[in-house]
């Protein structure tokens, strides 16, 4: 298995990065750090997709000298998917940071447990 993982080094790194982001999401109480964890997970997905599209010895899919054959260029589909992922990531990061600012203005803390306690106190 170690040999196989070493051959797929990019994907291995991507998966470990994903796990690191996930553990940050679970462990950190600070909302900003949680958002950073989510962004690390996103980055892992981009790395994974980009590595899936690569083919040894072939070039980026920009036609040179009118050569259009599959042995000349790498797979263009993952590039489009990464683009979609980046756009969605930027959007949700913006919205979540805005929500965090609103929460901070109301409760004057970024700790999610404290915010939950304060919100429960408001309900009662």
């Amino acid at each position, binding site marked *: *298995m170690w040999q*196989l*993982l070493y*051959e*797929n*080094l*990019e*994907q*291995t790194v991507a*998966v*470990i990065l*994903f*796990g*690191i982001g*996930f*553990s940050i999401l*679970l*462990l950190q109480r600070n909302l900003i750090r949680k958002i950073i964890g989510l962004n690390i997970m996103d980055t892992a997905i981009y790395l994974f997709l980009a*590595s*899936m*599209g*690569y*083919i*040894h*010895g*072939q070039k*980026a*899919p*920009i*036609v040179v000298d*009118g050569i*259009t*054959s*599959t*042995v*000349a*260029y790498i*797979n*263009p*589909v*993952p*590039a*489009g998917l990464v*683009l*979609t992922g*980046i*756009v*969605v990531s*930027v*959007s*949700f990061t*913006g*919205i979540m*940071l*805005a*929500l965090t*600012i*609103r929460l901070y203005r109301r409760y004057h803390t970024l700790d999610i447990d404290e915010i939950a306690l304060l919100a429960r106190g408001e309900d009662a």
Partner: protein
Amino acid sequence: MSKRRSDWESRPQARIRKWYREGFLALDNEIIDHLTRTTPQPPYTEDRLVAQQEEMASRQHERTLALERLDQHNVLAWARTRGRKAISRFYVVLALALSALMIFFLLETVALMPRFGDPATPGANIVSERYITKGLEETGAVNIVAGMILDYRAFDTLGESTVLFIAASAVLILLRIDRNKDGSPVQELIAAESDDRHYEPRNDRILQGSAMILTPIILLYGIYIILNGHLSPGGGFSGGAIISAGLILYLSAFGFEKAGRFFTNKTFTWVSFFSLMFYALAKAYSFYCGANGIPSGIPLGTPGAILSSGLIMPLNIAVGMVVACTMYIFYALFRKGGL
């Protein structure tokens, strides 16, 4: 006669009449007697005994209550200090175990994935083959990725631009500080402006000098990336991000008053609206023509020339405008709550 009489007497009607005539007084007397009868009082000694017993019972009850309260307090104190710590430690262990387990299973999957850089990977299937072999002649774009996302998959890219626009609108709703109806600033806006004056640089010579040199170059570079989206790496999204970086540099160097001369809320609204509208209409036209087999009349041009590949360049410009506006308004909203 007597039999008949006795029959009649046993009937309920007769009984009621009898009770009414004769028994009314008797019943009344009975009730009065019941109400006025005095109950016999227990002797004094017995009374004291009962009182003693009651007092002892109540003391016992109070003692148990106090013990219960103490228990409760102990439990709560434990929960507040050591229990909370224990639970959070347990949570940390559990979270780490979950993450490690997830990484382990994903690594197992990665070990079964096709090798990195393998030409026979199942990802390189008929779809990507079609994009690579026919992309140039069908879309006219030298950059196959641009041809893919703005021609074959243009609907997806319209969705992406809409997601960006909706995100910008949501942040606008969440963070925008409105003025009063008569145009005077609210307290929050005054506080935000004083914060901005306090924390952000004002008339910083180094920043202004570098912004004066860099902003035009960055803007030109972004425009180049957008216009060459179908010829070289780049396109609307990356070019729009670069343009917005230039605008943000200008804003942080020269402040909101000078940036407000060319970019206001209205600019954001109308540029985003017209870009998205143009995108939607153009792609609706080209999808309609393509689906019904009508020639769309959009020339593809010679591949490699700047004016080629049909709709891709205008669509790149539209996407770039949406992205630049969105990024810029994100920055302005996060910094001061409005433009």
